[in-house]
């Protein structure tokens, strides 16, 4: 028994020593943050421009006064217009085409012009199947895995990134069809507060609602080491058996993007800087350079 006791101590020692600490406010820099994904989908494409913010701030400051356009190597230019909250939508519907290269050009209100490197479509691929399997996860928790099978179509479809949107049904568990109504409420009345309480039927049926949330994880996969280049059983999402999202109805919409190796490695670094797999070793972080630079 003695041994067991000491080992228990060892494990507590090693396992339980991660604590959250407050982040000290630093002398910050005001950076322009550009988020744009150009695809071969024929639509009005979107560019999101925001500013970086300090640790004390609680909202994301949008960049609303920039001029945004995409320059195609055949000479054409697609202008974008601000629609609010830092979101810029292309004036025209268009799709990125194989063999063409595209450059994002942003002119900030201060007059600085930022250009991205010229990017091309690396290839295309399809999602063959998206399916749910009841399984235990790596920690032995019972639940449902959402798996994806996919295969490449053309070009260099080696590096993938996934985004998803989950929609689920919420039924308020302690819902009542009735509501209460207070009238003639006088908190200053003496000797005690006076009011009239009425029980009325609820005007709006709010017992059932649906929530849609976009993914916020960096979810990537590469098939460079595989002979078949086929994606098999790629785990998109795990939902524990006790997860409230799957109490009633649940749906997931998964988007699969084929991306360039540089985009893949940017997201991979972003992911590795912002997660920790191992208490003993953390990746050396630093400034991550994307593919946009001041011209």
């Amino acid at each position: 028994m003695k041994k067991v006791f000491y080992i228990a101590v060892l494990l507590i020692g090693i396992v339980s020593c991660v604590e959250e600490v407050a982040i000290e406010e630093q002398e910050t820099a005001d950076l322009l943050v550009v988020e744009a994904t150009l695809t071969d989908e024929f639509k009005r494409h979107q560019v999101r421009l925001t500013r970086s913010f300090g640790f004390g701030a609680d909202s994301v400051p949008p960049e609303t006064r920039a001029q945004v356009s995409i320059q195609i190597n055949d000479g054409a230019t697609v202008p974008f217009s601000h629609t609010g909250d830092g979101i810029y939508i292309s004036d025209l519907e268009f799709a990125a085409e194989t063999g063409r290269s595209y450059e994002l050009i942003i002119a900030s209100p201060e007059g600085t012009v930022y250009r991205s490197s010229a990017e091309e479509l690396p290839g295309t691929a399809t999602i063959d199947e998206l399916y749910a399997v009841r399984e235990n996860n790596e920690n032995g928790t019972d639940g449902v895995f959402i798996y994806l099978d996919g295969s490449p179509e053309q070009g260099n479809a080696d590096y993938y990134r996934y985004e998803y949107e989950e929609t689920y049904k919420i039924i308020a568990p302690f819902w009542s069809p009735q509501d209460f109504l207070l009238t003639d409420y006088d908190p200053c009345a003496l000797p005690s507060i006076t009011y009239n309480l009425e029980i009325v039927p609820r005007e709006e049926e709010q017992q059932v609602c649906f929530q849609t949330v976009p993914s916020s994880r960096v979810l990537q996969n590469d098939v460079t080491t595989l002979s078949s280049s086929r994606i098999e059983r790629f785990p998109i999402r795990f939902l524990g058996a006790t997860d409230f999202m799957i109490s009633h109805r649940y749906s997931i919409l998964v988007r699969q993007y084929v991306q360039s190796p540089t985009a893949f490695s940017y997201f991979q670094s972003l992911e590795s800087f912002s997660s920790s797999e191992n208490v003993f070793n953390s990746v050396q972080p630093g400034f991550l350079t994307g593919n946009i630079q001041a011209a």
Partner: protein
Amino acid sequence: MIRAFLCCLLFAVGISGMAQEHEERVDFEFDSLSIPEVLSKFSATLDYKVFYLESWFTEDRISGRYADITPQDLLSAILKDTPVSQYRYGPRTFVLTANSQIYEQLPDGFFGRPSDSTSPISSTTERPGPPAPVFVNQQELQNNAQVETIRIGRQELSNPASTYLLTGYVQERASGRAVADLVIYEKNRGLGTATDINGYYELRLPPGLNLLESRSIGKEAVQKQVILYNDGTLDWLVEEGVEELEEVVVEARQDSNVEEVITGTQIINAEESKDIPLVLGERNILDIAATLPGISKAGEGALGLNVRGGRTDQNMFLLNKAIVYNPTHFFGIFQALNPFVTEQVEIYKGVIPVEYGGRLSAVFDIKTKDGSTDDLKGEGSIGPVTANMALEIPIAKDRSSLVLGGRVAYSDWILRVLENEDLNSSTASFYDLIGTYTDRLNENNRLKATAYYSKDRFSITADSTFRYSNRAASVEWDHRFSDQNTGSFTLTNSRYAFDIGYEAQSNTNFNLGYSVEETELRGVIRHRLSDQHRLTYGLAGKYYGVRPGTLEPLGQDSDVVPQELGREQGLEGGVFLSDDWVVSERLSLSAGLRLSVFAALGPSDQREYAPDQPRNPATVIDTLSYGSGEVIKTYGGPEVRFSTRYLLGPEFSVKAGFSNMYQYIHTLTNTTSVSPIDTWKLSDLNIRPQTSQQVTLGFFRNLNEGMFELSLEGYYKWSQDVLDFKTGAQILLNDAIETEVIQGDGKAYGVEFLLKKTIGRLNGWLGYTYSRSLIRFDSPFPEEQVNNGEFFPSNYDQPHNLSLVANYKFTQRYSASLNFSYQTGRPVTYPIGQFNFNNADYVFYSDRNSQRIPDYIRLDLGINIEGNHRKNKLAHSFWTISVYNVLGRANPYSLFFVTEDGEVKALQTSIFGIPIPSITYNFKF
């Protein structure tokens, strides 16, 4: 030997008065033959029978040419420089005897007093005729069977004397240093002498059996039975008196810290360090090293040691001369060396002796015990993490023995027993094994062979398993050519390998492997030229083979295509010479030069990059193909190893040193601390060797007759081409790693203070270091710069470092010990703001290592209880009860910023955040 001697006596009884008329005369010559070869030529060509044992003769070769000489004189000439005598037994027969002479007549009084004599036995010295034969009582010899018996000199019938002169030289076995003031005395007669400052002695002794014993403070007493036939020499090798020491500090090397010429040398004795409390009761000689000034560890879970501001890959850990790439288990928390087998670690962090090369910062020369040649001995311990066992098995008495050691961690087993869900996915286990065979073939040859293996396995998530292993083997042969010349020849082979297994329920399961292997052959000759000069010279050649990465599918369903990155090969060579020169009584210096050379060898494809552009896949201008064994590029140059000592007083000295080094193998790491899955990379066309230069100046003072040792040492070290990575570099399975590597400059400086108390109930040491370690990565291209090309603190820059290690002995059986350490928190890269991207907040960084984590403060306490020392007890036991981190301070090990559920959090980890008690039971038989 004894039997041969008796036979000779029997011959002597049977023969008397052999006539020697009509002597033939012969011509005879021989060229560069050993004496047995000369003798066989003698008997073959001249038709004589000669009886002798080959073991009487050394392998020295002799030459000679003789004309018109009697066979008897010829034999005398051949045997001139040996202790062997000849006796003519028949017309064509000679009998040779070692040391003793064959008497033709029995001495007077051999069978008792002659009946006609009226006088008492006359004094032997007065008796005319042949001298007294030397008789040795067999009974007496057997009583002292464990004592080495040595016969010295050739008896000369014509030159009897009542005493003979024994001279010789005494040196310490491990260090090879002369031992001064060592007393050598004859136990039964009370005759004695002491060695002079250079280790020489002279002693007059009567012929026959003398039981000699050496005595010196801190040296093991050595007994030798000497049968003296004539004047002769007897050199002694003595061991440090480990057994006599009970405390933390070495008495044996009293004043050595003042007198030693080479600066920056420290010795840790495994036995002495056993009382220091350490994490989970596991003895860790490397952690103890980190309590010495100038040696630090970046944190509790950090692999490796940083010596004088150097990267961890700049240290060379030698286990009986074979490199061990990673001598730790489980993220550096435990050492991968069996503490019961380890004898000592000698650390060179300043001017590294000339026979070592290839790593910039330090050499940790770990030696294992020579096993007992008399009795089976064992030592073991049962602790909370490991069970540990070592055996010393005698093979041949007084000659050879085998040492076996094994250690295994049972924590994994305990993890399973606990059946805790959260722990199911993280497991860890390790073991290490060692075997050494030591054979003192004869007084001139000693052989030591070592085989070592350690293995670790851990997994943090259920689908990945990490395994790493060290292998090391060495054969060391020490040979004494003559009294002035000794040589050590070593052949070593080492391998470090790791692999990562990934197993999920998909088609992507793989096993990724890495290994580095090296084989070295080295010869070092030490030549005592005179009392003033001692030369060390030799050659070393090393072959490296690296498999930088293999990828294999795991399981039948895996679609992974097997892949292997191009293997790397290299040859490293060194030629070296140094002179330890005693210039005057006060001034000594050690000056050495080592020519270091490295050749990167094919087969390989090396990319050439445009010289004035940043290195990336787009700037490749050519790919050069090299055939197998073809030299890709050579690097190297002279390395100076110079140090000098001037005695300002009898216990006060000043020392200065300069050295420069080259290093051709580098670890590639993209984490803030070193990890077991960091790969080692050889220099090639694009990756230059790391180099360094160091100057040191120090003052060394002993107080109170050696009770206190005080030292103050400063150093400044420059380094060039140290490696780092571009932000976000991918290292594993990257065949264009040079596009991710950046090479820059380092500068490190510091002042180290050490106060040691070596004698008394309370002993221990107090070390304080102020040091800085800065690096700079500058380049014309922003993508190859870090912090705009300015100097910034390295990940292990900890300016203030204080250690106190103390041990107090209440009684022979009870002692308490304390270990306190304080270090400035190490630098960390702190974000300067956050941004929203992909529906989540992320932080962004600017300057690397601009902030520090909180300081590290830890106190450990321990109590050691020795079992009683009753002589007939089966096993001696020893309990260690210790509490690690008594203060319970959650010392931060790292600080990182994660995005969880779209929000940024700062997480601070500590490895041992609470007091950790442990009990270890040790036993010895």
